[in-house]
């Protein structure tokens, strides 16, 4: 299951990381080097062990539906890179019709 340059390009795209072509080969090598060590997991059984552990795990505690969020010590404008009229700003989306899942 060797990692190819296309795999790295693909995951870099998914992760919104710009990898210069010059560095691509290095990442391909390093990922292959690391993943080679992961191969030893294949020899181990344990299928379903995680599901079994999960099935006895204590459930989460919930919070009451009362307003009272952790306050911000400073207004958003003091740290946001681009704000206008209370909105965060980004470049207009070329695919702006393509509202992703909500």
């Amino acid at each position, binding site marked *: 299951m060797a990692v190819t340059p296309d795999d790295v390009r693909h995951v870099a795209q998914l992760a919104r990381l710009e990898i210069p072509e010059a560095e691509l080969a290095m990442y391909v090598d390093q990922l292959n080097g690391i993943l080679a060590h992961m191969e030893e997991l294949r020899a181990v059984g344990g299928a379903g062990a995680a599901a079994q552990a*999960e099935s006895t795990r*204590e*459930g989460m505690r919930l919070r009451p*539906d009362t307003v009272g969020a952790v306050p911000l010590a400073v207004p958003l404008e003091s740290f946001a890179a681009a704000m206008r*009229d209370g909105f965060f700003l980004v*470049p207009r*989306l070329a695919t702006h019709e*393509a509202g992703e*899942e*909500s």
Partner: protein
Amino acid sequence: MSAARKQSADNSAKPTSTAGDWEMVVGLEVHVQLKTRTKAFCACSTNFGDAPNSNTCPVCLALPGALPVLNAHAVDLAARAALALGCTLHHRSVFARKNYFYPDLPKGYQISQADKPLATGGHVTLADGKVLGITRIHMEEDAGKSVHDRFAGLTAIDLNRSGVPLIEIVGEPEIRSAAEAGAYLKALREILVYCGVSDCSMEEGSLRVDANVSARPRGEAEFRPRTEIKNLNSFSNVERALELEFQRHVATYEAGGRIAQQTMLFDAVRQEVRAARSKEGSHDYRYFPEPDLPPLVLQTEWIEHQRGTIPELPAARRGRFVNALGVAAADAEVLTAERDVAEYFEAVAAASGDGKAAANWVMGEVLAALNERGGDIGAFPVEASRLAALIALVKAGTLSSTAAKTVFQVMLAEPGDPQAIAERDGLLQVGDDAALVAWIDEVWAEHPDEAARFVAGERKLQGVLVGFVMKKSKGRADPRKVNQLLAGRG
């Protein structure tokens, strides 16, 4: 966008969803905003329409180090929805991260549920008795809002909606026409509103619909490739978009073409469905269990408690109104449209012992007054018990129905027993012969022509003459007796 990739309303053929040789296959994914005070994973207000980004905190802004903690009431409401829709509510469900980049998704992932959802396997029953399956219901958080038309060249982001709790209700692909899709949505909305789960307002975005549609030749068992239509902001748009997209599929097949699985957008202004620009094959959401949240564990006793909070659902209630209270089917529809109104009606019907009269009053005077005054029926000034007393007075002949309407108007403005009001205002029905004869004599004197023609045998004038007497008596005359007395003069 190429002309071939869109199907516009202007050049579309007549609706043919169920006609012809092709069958429409539709499955709906409905996102419903849960009616909580605070967001799913933080204690920010869910209030709609506040100043942009005013309801935000470290958690829903995804500041470094912030963590989600689930809102208990969101779980209540999601469970209630699942139970009302006949789903199996799972004792253990698991949240998952759905990873994608979008500027209104602050964490870069949405907390949702994937292979261990809250509930599976429910159904919605339509008015015509058809049962449509629900595959699953899962909990998730909403994204913020991207505003594209506010600033030139920029997209503006408002995160007030970021983290608002939703359930997604995934329907089985069992819908076979646009009208059926509309009926499904209507029935679904009715149940969710009834149970207090959501406002289900498409205008405010608290109910949103994505539709998966495909076409196949009638009789074909296999499903063909489907397209997903997003951006559907009203029930009529859902129906319209399904029609248009179905026709596009059919036309494509008939021209020997193929349908590719893709996302479409409905443009309500242009009334057209067009392909969304593909997003560079980024649909690899890399779901994995949300490590910040242990599993959601629901105990049996808790589930049974939630089941107990579910009111009688509108369809069952309609049936009971028709069968047990003698209400006409169409009237039952009106009376059950809102849970509070239905409950008010039931109280009036029970106290007065007359379902039909209660229905007439509630649908007539009560809803009219409610419309005029605004507000909800919980605060309506004429309580069910007083309205029932008023109905009883009419039934006993103590008040004419005309006078009763006058009394009702008074009751809107002041408390007090209707009988006392009628007595004080001199509105009690008059059945005393002497008084009635005196009014008839006056009418005879004022309308000699009609009186003469009536006496001469023109029977159809009786109604006119009764009307004159009623008017003269200011509605107090007992119309039944007036009729008897007039018949004696004819």
